[in-house]
């Protein structure tokens, strides 16, 4: 039986022509090709330096020292360690919150905050008067609650069709109130009063207990008891007044009261 000759792959031919293919044998072929096209090998920063000075090629390309893979981590550059921070004189990173910790709960406060966000964004757009000055003017009319009267109607008429304005107002309102609103919800808003409603809306309940608290359907009934957490054996014994007896007897005998103390 005659052996069928295997045709040579095109990539093998290209690799053979590449000048650095012999030195980077531990790299895969596509990476070798990519490294060959670059002025300096990609792996140079991971290698330890041999100390020989760099020589210049006749083409003007800078030829580095021959690549020697690092066997240990001695001499390699480290990032992110406390010593590295001290050497580079960097300021330690401080986490800055985008939203405040406390969420506003009062609807009138939220309404004020959204209105303030409007004023700030529009003032910055105009780049005329300062935002504080305009806000002080609006604050002088505090006696009239913003949720009632002609003022609320005026606010409702402000259109919100400009995407950049809508995004800026929503972002600033989030910073002022601490309430996070999804992009999809903001996308569907087309007027100022809808945006205010979006911020003042009650959040969706996360579980059944929260839902029952919101609806208040069972709270007024005397024969219903709702517990937010799973009832344990200790809870059941406490309910009938037997747990303190059990606990006393366990302590008297030197036995563990709960599993955690075992």
């Amino acid at each position, binding site marked *: 039986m005659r052996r069928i000759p295997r045709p040579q792959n095109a990539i093998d031919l290209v690799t053979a022509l590449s000048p650095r293919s012999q030195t980077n044998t531990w790299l895969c072929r596509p990476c070798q090709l990519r490294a060959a096209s670059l002025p300096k090998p990609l792996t140079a920063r991971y290698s330890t330096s041999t100390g020989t000075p760099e020589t210049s090629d006749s083409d003007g390309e800078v030829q580095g020292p021959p690549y020697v893979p690092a066997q240990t981590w001695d001499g390699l550059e480290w990032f992110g360690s406390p010593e590295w921070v001290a050497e580079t004189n960097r300021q330690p990173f401080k986490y800055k919150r985008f939203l405040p910790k406390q969420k506003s709960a009062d609807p009138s406060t939220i309404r004020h905050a959204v209105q303030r966000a409007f004023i700030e964004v529009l003032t910055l757009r105009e780049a005329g008067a300062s935002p504080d000055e305009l806000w002080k003017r609006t604050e002088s009319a505090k006696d009239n609650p913003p949720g009632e009267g002609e003022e609320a109607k005026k606010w409702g008429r402000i259109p919100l069709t400009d995407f950049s304005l809508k995004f800026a107002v929503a972002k600033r309102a989030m910073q002022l109130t601490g309430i996070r609103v999804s992009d999809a919800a903001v996308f569907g808003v087309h007027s100022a009063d809808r945006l205010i409603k979006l911020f003042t809306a009650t959040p969706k309940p*996360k*579980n*059944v*207990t929260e*839902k*029952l608290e919101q*609806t208040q*359907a*069972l709270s007024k*009934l*005397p*024969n*219903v*008891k*709702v*517990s*937010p*957490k*799973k*009832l344990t054996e200790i809870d059941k014994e406490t309910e009938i007044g037997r747990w303190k007896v059990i606990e006393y007897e366990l302590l008297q005998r030197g036995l563990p009261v709960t599993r955690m103390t075992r």
Partner: protein
Amino acid sequence: MPLKALEAVSKGQNGVGAFILQCKRIDVHYCDWAGSSKGMNTFITTHLPTFARLNPSIELHISPRPTRHPLLRGHYINGRQKAVCVKNLAPGQILEKAELLKAGSGEKNQRINKPVASLNGSVRGVWSPFHGSRYRL
């Protein structure tokens, strides 16, 4: 004079004069995460307030049982308990199960073969020499 107990004139029977519901408490367990509790979670928010209002003598305890199927557990005045798993059931079906627990006596399920069941062995009662027609020799 020795102390003497009062003789029982009549024996109390539930339903004669007053009716006391045998079910004293129902535990309602659900899971916030699992899909088998979907119907139960809806039942708690929609049907349960009405059920609790209509049955003020039944104590209702609602508590989660995470990563477990939903459950109704009835407690009866004879000390027994009856638990019904209500996984994947619709709110209406769960209400039927709650009614079943409410109507139960707490006794074990028994097969009834006879058409008439009674606590007394005979409708004629126990024979007494002082009652009924007088016999003369």
